């Protein structure tokens, strides 16, 4: 029973991938990889998703600590807000970003005054990707922090360790596997991001057209190219994900 149902699930996941591979040809793959628009989209995807991953790490880790370790009024609400982008349709997320950071948005006018324009720019694509992917990192790290044995941190404190030293020597090593998983999830979500990006940052070749957007474009004109691009995205994602997880979970 278990094997039967599990097997059905596995086939369910594998079949579309097999279908995708069966429709691609090696020569087509090669030709697509050489196309300037595809190369631009691929590099832009990597750039946007990695810059966003860095942002998620720098901002998301402190947020996860705040949510896990600091009692403050409205913490439940803050938790809800953080998980919101996970349940929101990404297009709605893009509209929400426009209403906050767009030209006529809440902060848009002020941002424009200091010379920061986000909509329809590469920076805007980074913002869109960060918005939808950071919850994956924050929630993974928060759960991991909550499960760290408080005795270990207390033992370090009695031995004279400063808070910074406790963090480095006890807390971070304890959440290391979760950090790897969180980074991988966060980055994978960012690499596949489509809806919020196209809504907030547009679909401008070389500036905001990441791989998922290029796939979408290709689908309108050349379905075969869309398949190939999809495969390229798949291969790159798989390689980087495995490398990232392997690197971080090993000491």
């Amino acid at each position, binding site marked *: 029973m278990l094997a039967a149902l599990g097997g059905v699930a596995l086939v369910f996941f594998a079949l579309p991938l097999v279908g995708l591979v069966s429709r691609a040809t090696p020569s087509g793959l090669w030709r697509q990889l050489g196309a300037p628009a595809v190369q631009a989209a691929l590099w832009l995807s990597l750039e946007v998703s990695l810059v966003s991953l860095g942002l998620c790490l720098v901002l998301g880790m402190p947020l996860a600590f705040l949510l896990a370790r600091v009692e403050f009024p409205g913490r439940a609400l803050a938790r809800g807000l953080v998980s919101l982008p996970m349940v929101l349709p990404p297009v709605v997320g893009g509209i929400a970003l426009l209403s906050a950071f767009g030209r006529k948005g809440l902060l848009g006018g002020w941002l424009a005054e200091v010379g920061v324009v986000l909509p329809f720019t590469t920076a805007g694509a980074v913002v869109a990707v960060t918005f939808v992917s950071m919850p994956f990192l924050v929630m993974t790290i928060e759960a991991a922090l909550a499960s760290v*044995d408080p*005795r*270990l941190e*207390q*033992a*370090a*404190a*009695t*031995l*004279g*360790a*400063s808070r910074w*030293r406790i963090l480095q*020597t*006890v807390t971070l*090593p*304890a959440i*290391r596997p979760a950090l790897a998983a969180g980074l991988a999830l966060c980055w994978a979500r960012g690499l596949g991001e489509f809806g919020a990006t196209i809504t907030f940052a547009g679909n401008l070749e070389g500036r905001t057209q990441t791989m998922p957007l290029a796939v979408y474009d290709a689908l309108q004109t050349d379905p075969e190219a869309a398949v190939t691009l999809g495969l390229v995205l798949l291969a790159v994602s798989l390689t980087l994900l495995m490398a990232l997880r392997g690197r971080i979970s090993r*000491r």
Partner: protein
Amino acid sequence: MKGGLEVDAEVRRGSFTLALRCSVPEGCTVALVGPNGSGKSTVVELLAGLVPASRGSITLAGRVLERAPGLRLPPQARGLGVVFQGLALFPSLTALDNVAYGLRSRGLGRAQARAQAQVWLGRFELGELADRRPEELSGGQAQRVALARAMIVRPPLLLLDEPLSSLDVEARGAARTLLRGWLAEAPGVKLLVTHDLEDARAIADRLLVLDRGKVVAEGPVEALLAAPPPFLAAMMR
């Protein structure tokens, strides 16, 4: 009683109140015994600075650790040695780096701290296990690493919360004898929390009996066990 421990403090936790009054002379090993829920672990947390006193003061070797409300040294500033229940060894560090941890936290260089830690591991017959991680140690070995980690800083107060509980019955007898020897050599006040009167009899000089958050008896171990008050007699059965 200049070098000893003086405590007159209260801790409130929900409906439970710990009222601890005791004075332990320098060099003395005192066993804190009492039934489950009597507040033994709260005593450790209070002295280590992990829970605040709601009232009263703690003085160690002439230095005020806490005077509520207002003055409260954080755990880092107390300089105690603590062997926690369950030991709380750092899983990502080797035995050597676990033992060196307190010295490193005090700013000693890595090489020097490790050299001293190696000496302490040798003293506890763990010299060859320096590179092992806690998960690769037996219960008895882990217990000795935790003891070395706490003792290496030569604390004025050494707190041991059920240090023998991770050992099976056979290992326990031998460990008691060893522990008595090590504690006898250590300066400062030693406080041993145990639910086992045999541990207290074998290791401690004095006995402090705790029941429902209050000290109900205090005195030399042999005298108290020879003519036990009723609640102690009940524990002995």
